[in-house]
């Protein structure tokens, strides 16, 4: 009885070892390390217009913050294959949300302006979309039997959609702030 249990344990161990190693190797081979992200030319043209508009205004703390946001947009405007690890290392902890308090204080944004334009929501959406870009790829080391379609087609497609939304929201925020500043809005003298 003991001997048969011991034999079973040995067989289970061998089978288990083989399954784990094969799954690890398959998982490793199917890992997504690069992704193709494209920002549209239309967005870049709009950004260029906002940049020009901003440069014509009187420079102050508020315009400086908006310029930083434009710079961030430019740094994260991709047009081809991007390495997920490099993207994460470059942008970790950064998103438009990190500019939110600075924008509120330096541009002296009122509560009504923030609420009417749903500014807080837009900043939050932008931050969440920025995080989502690489969140689903962080735990790729987990041994899961994911089908090829999900990993190589569906998920990268979803990531591209999230990136598109992310860029549109960023552009909308920049447009709102430049528009406010152009109308002489709440300028910090």
């Amino acid at each position: 009885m003991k001997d048969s249990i011991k034999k079973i344990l040995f067989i289970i161990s061998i089978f288990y070892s083989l399954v784990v190693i094969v799954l690890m190797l398959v998982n490793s081979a199917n890992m997504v390390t690069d992704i193709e992200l494209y920002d549209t030319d239309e967005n870049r043209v709009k950004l260029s217009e906002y940049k020009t508009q901003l440069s014509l205004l009187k420079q102050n703390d508020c315009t400086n913050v908006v310029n930083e946001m434009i710079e961030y947009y430019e740094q994260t405007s991709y047009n081809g294959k991007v390495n997920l690890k490099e993207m994460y290392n470059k942008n970790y902890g950064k998103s438009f949300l990190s500019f939110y308090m600075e924008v509120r204080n330096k541009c002296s944004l009122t509560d009504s302006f923030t609420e009417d334009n749903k500014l807080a929501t837009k900043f939050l959406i932008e931050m969440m979309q920025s995080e989502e870009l690489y969140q689903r790829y962080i735990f790729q080391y987990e041994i899961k039997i994911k089908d090829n379609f999900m990993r190589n087609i569906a998920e990268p497609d979803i990531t591209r959609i999230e990136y598109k939304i992310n860029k549109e929201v960023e552009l909308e925020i920049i447009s709102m702030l430049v528009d406010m500043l152009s109308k002489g809005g709440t300028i910090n003298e």
Partner: protein
Amino acid sequence: MNNQKTFKILYYVAFAVTILIYFLSSQPITIFGSGMLIPLNFILGVICLIFVLIFTIKAKKKKLNNVNILFPISYLLFLIIVSIIAVLLNSKLIIPYIHYNYYISFILINYLLLNIYSVLSISK
């Protein structure tokens, strides 16, 4: 060198290497760390340690019956291969090092099987 002695040597080598890998893989908890796996690995580690103690105490006075030295050898091979894959994967991952705690649980489960086998091999 008889089968029993070889098995004991391989068993303790497996123990030493497992302990080494366990401590090398124990990374500080990060916000992306799978918090649940740390208690699981700790529990598995404690259970395995208990088996090692039982084996060490009982095997001193008693003989081992029908031990297959292939078991500790296959376990050591498994441990080495999993560790190599985990190290090679490190450069591919977005956040390095967080996967070690995940893979150590697979190693400890296999080690538990070896421990149960070893304790069962001690004659009455």
